[in-house]
């Protein structure tokens, strides 16, 4: 049992990091970022390049993928989303753009890094073993803690920095924020960059454990969508809760339902739909946020 909880917490910390980025972009721009999973995969590949190809330290790899992804996110917002949002009649049109970007990133990843599964050498050797009740490799613990630290840093940043306050204001009410003198364009771009950065950092963390491959983008996006549906779209605490809940469900499901074959996700999906029938806005979302 302890083992299941430990696994769930480890998964949850990573998932929360992914969901945070997605929910941030959604709350600021009202854009459902289909390309989030691809951004995550791209982050993984950048870390792989820095660490395995160039032989630089792991933390630097994560830093580089975070920065590059942030730059890319800012560019995507400024040159793609902003003009389309301004000119389209129905704001759902951004979905087509987001899907196009997802395809584009898939193509770029395919051309730059190929189809192969890539991984980096273990960052820490050894296995933590508590009386055979919890067995967990040290590198997983380190990655889990790093993910938690990133989540904590993000929350503190959003709560106490001037930029964070501006973004929260933007998420609450775009027009009101604008009237109070918040530079809407600038902070939208900044928020998108931050969201993409979180995806990049999560991808960089992941590559040290399971490696990355091209096909992971789509499924990751779907998982991230589920997390923010559980917690409520556009709510930071909801994204974190959703991430941990999904991580825990996955961990429990894979252990308990192992005998019945690959039905864990089927059951998670089905229960999610039942849950949403009763609480459409998720755990912490505002109705029709």
């Amino acid at each position, binding site marked *: 049992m302890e083992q299941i909880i430990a696994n769930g917490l480890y998964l949850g910390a990573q998932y929360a990091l992914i969901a945070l980025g997605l929910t941030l972009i959604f709350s600021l721009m009202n854009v459902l970022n289909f390309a989030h999973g691809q951004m995550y995969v791209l982050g993984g590949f950048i870390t792989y390049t820095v660490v395995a190809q160039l032989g630089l330290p792991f933390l630097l790899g994560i830093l580089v993928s975070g920065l590059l992804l942030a730059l890319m996110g800012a560019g995507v917002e400024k040159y793609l989303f902003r003009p389309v949002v301004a*000119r389209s009649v129905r704001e759902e049109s951004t979905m087509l753009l987001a899907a196009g970007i997802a*395809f584009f990133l898939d193509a770029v990843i395919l051309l730059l890094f190929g189809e192969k599964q890539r991984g980096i050498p273990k960052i820490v050797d050894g296995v933590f073993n508590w009386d055979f009740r919890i067995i967990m490799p040290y590198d997983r613990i380190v990655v889990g803690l790093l993910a938690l630290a990133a989540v904590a840093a993000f929350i503190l940043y959003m709560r106490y920095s001037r930029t964070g306050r501006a973004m929260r204001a933007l998420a609450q009410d775009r027009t009101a924020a604008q009237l109070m003198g918040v530079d809407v364009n600038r902070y939208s771009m900044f928020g998108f960059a931050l969201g993409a950065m979180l995806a990049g950092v999560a991808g960089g963390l992941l590559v040290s454990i399971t490696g990355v491959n091209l096909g992971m983008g789509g499924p990751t996006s779907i998982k991230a969508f589920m997390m923010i549906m559980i917690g409520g779209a556009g709510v930071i605490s909801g994204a974190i809760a959703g991430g941990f809940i999904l991580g825990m469900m996955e961990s429990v499901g894979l252990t308990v339902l192992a005998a019945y074959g690959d039905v864990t996700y089927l059951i998670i999906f089905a229960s999610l739909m039942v849950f949403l029938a009763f609480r459409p806005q998720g755990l912490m979302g505002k109705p029709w946020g």
Partner: protein
Amino acid sequence: MTLFKKLLGVGLFLALVLVLVPWLIERSGRWDFYYTLTSVALLSIASAGVWLTFYIGRINIGQGAYALVGGYVSAILVTQAGMNFWLTLPLAGLFCALLSVLIGLPILRLRGVYFAMVTLVLTEVVRLTALALPITNGARGIVNIPLPTELSLFGLTLIPDFGTLANPKLAFYLAAVIMMILSYAVLYRIVHSRLGHLCRSLQQNEELAASIGVNITYLRILAYSISSFFGGIAGASFVNISQSIYPSSFQVVDSVNFMLNCFLGGLGYVFGPMLGTLLLYFGWDLLFTTGKYQLLIYSSLLILLMLVLPNGLLSLRLSRKAKQPAQASPDKQPSGATP
């Protein structure tokens, strides 16, 4: 548009797809285009369904689920019950419509992005269900589905046996195109009826519509089930053309593509999804020659198109012809779409 002009347009379109295209293919010898165009016709039926859900203001990324369900219903009925494909076609559609009522009752209460995400998840649920159930034969799928057999009424052959035809590709093409035309005729009729007006009221403001006395729950379910019916028959026909079905026959990417078809063609135009499907599918097919750069070029074009024409391809025609009304409506619509 006058009645004469409309009839002329329909006539020209029929001549184009039923006479000119087969003739051109015959002349050029590109027989592979039949398969491509058949796929376009069938996929555009599914896209028409997605478009109808857009019309009530819901973003539907779950059409792949119904296409897969329809495909399995038809495949199982044909292979295990030995039924005629042409009879399984409406059954597959009806099964999907019924299923969508059950699923739609809870999830149609969701709006905007929530509905979009739930339908996306639905595609994945159906794929996993198909993997897990014994009757669908898991990952191995159902293969060797026989070609559609003869359909006769009182000894009169309505549709000949596809297995005995000299050119089953042409037959499939014609069948698919006729189905597409019928589907879009139905769609056009729905949109230009009282039902269509009511659906438009849902798109703009559900609370307001409800306060005037529109039964929004009933309408939502109705539109969604019609949409799923389209998805079901499209999936069933597709499966019978490729003569096989796997859980991966329709997956999330397909669901997203159905939605993209609608966006690309333009959400305000009944024939938008048809154009969108043609362009997306054909464009993808033509880019095949570029090899590994296929996806790169395709996605770049998609992004560019979105930057230039964010309101869909057919908006090009509208903005030129009716400038004044087109300018008046965009100012109003965003505030109505996001209460």
